[in-house]
């Protein structure tokens, strides 16, 4: 599902990733653990082709990212679910409009979009907030909304950047249970976190990133 081979990246002179290599198989649930500034978000951005590596090869869902062109990039990204660390909601759109966005971008029929949005809002316990703005709901609800938006198009791979950041252990475990359920349905899940204990508690494969390399 994910093949990272000798990937390097740097911001100007500052090297962030050096010769990073690992593999994630289809259906796996993997934690990428590392302290703040270790390059987790950069690696994730490389995986969804927001950045291009300065060296090495990257292959995600069978697609070599170096060979992605402007035409095939949207198709590639529609197969991936993204949960951003800062959520990246459209602040002037309601909860349901934010949730509908990936479906609209994929060209899903309006009637189906409405059905799916209602179903996901119900599943995530956000039905009563459908007309609220993202700034009007709690942090935990925003996280659930971010996950719902990431999976509404039924992607084969879910990339989540620090989804448990600022959450207490109970809520973190609740969220992990939600991701575990998605993984159980066949979705490959790749989560970054600074919390090693949480990753160990979940009893999943852990890849540790430290000082720009895999430990």
């Amino acid at each position, binding site marked *: 599902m994910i093949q990272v081979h000798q990937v390097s990246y740097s911001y100007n002179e500052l090297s962030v990733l050096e010769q990073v290599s690992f593999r994630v198989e289809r259906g796996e649930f993997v934690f990428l653990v590392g302290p703040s500034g270790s390059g987790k978000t950069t690696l994730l951005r490389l995986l*969804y082709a*927001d950045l291009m590596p300065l060296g090495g090869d990257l292959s995600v869902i069978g697609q070599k990212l170096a060979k992605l062109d*402007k035409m095939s990039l*949207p*198709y*590639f*990204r*529609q197969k991936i679910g*993204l949960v951003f660390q800062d959520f*990246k909601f*459209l602040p*002037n759109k309601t909860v349901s409009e934010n949730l509908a*966005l*990936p479906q*609209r*971008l*994929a*060209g899903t029929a*309006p009637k189906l979009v409405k059905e799916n949005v209602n179903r996901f809002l119900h599943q995530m316990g956000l039905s009563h907030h459908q007309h609220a703005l993202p700034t009007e709901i709690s942090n935990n609800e925003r996280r659930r909304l971010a996950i719902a*938006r990431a999976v509404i*198009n039924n992607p084969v791979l879910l990339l989540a950047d620090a989804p448990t950041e600022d959450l207490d252990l109970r809520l973190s475990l609740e969220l992990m249970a939600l991701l575990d359920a998605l993984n159980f349905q066949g979705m490959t899940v790749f989560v970054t976190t600074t919390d090693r204990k949480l990753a160990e508690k979940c009893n999943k494969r852990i890849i540790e990133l430290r000082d720009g390399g895999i430990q």
Partner: protein
Amino acid sequence: MRYRLKNAISHITCAGTSSLIGVIGVGFITALLTTLLLNHSLISEQSEFKSHSPTLVAFLKDTVDESNGRTLVSQLEKNGQILAVDYTSKADKLARGETEFQDLGVLIKEAFAETQGVNPFPASLNIYVDEELITRKALEHIALEIKTHDEIEDVMLTGHGQLKDRLRDSERTMLAGTAIAVVVVWFIIGSIIKRAAVARAEEIHLMKLLGMFRNHLLLPFAVHGLFLGSLGAICGLGCFYGMVYVFQSQLGGVHFLAMYQIILVVVAGMLIGLFVGVATHRKYV
């Protein structure tokens, strides 16, 4: 469709008051361009009205009889730049006096009929040249050349040639004005759509990350351009029409543009807006 329309409207509102300023700017340029267009139409109308009158009228001396006059006609017709020469005798001129000089002509005609005195109208040659091919300078040169003949008392340029010159000038001015207007309108609309694109930059980036196809935002950009171009053109025409209507008495009954010209201006505004919208989309999305 409803989503796409909402998306397009939200895109227009992203530019905030700039869209309104843009409409005013495009309207102002349209009003200026309409002034040139109206001026050109008026000159064109006058030129059309005078198209059957001769370019030059050469008055013959009273001593020249009809046969000498006709000999001069055949001499002048040898000039390659002259299309035709018509001879009008003193008697014909007297007969036409009524139409050419109205009250004064009637008075002269009646006096002549009563007294059979001296006919004050000179015999003349109506000279036609191809004004499309001849410049004002060349026309003046022909006039001077005709004047060198002993039989000629005076040569007069009827003004039709002058109108043609003015028509050519106004055509050139209008072309230059249109080119400048297109550039300025392109700049105005482009700046405003760019502003909307910059305001939506984060949103556009997020949409790209979520798998947006490039053409997804083409419609809002194109609609924004169409909106600015068409509304600006309509406002400009509306304001100009208002001014013409208010100052109609001072302008001497000038008619406003023909319907096809109005449609042309609006369509031009829409097309420029559309092109700018698409170009800005290509650049920023």
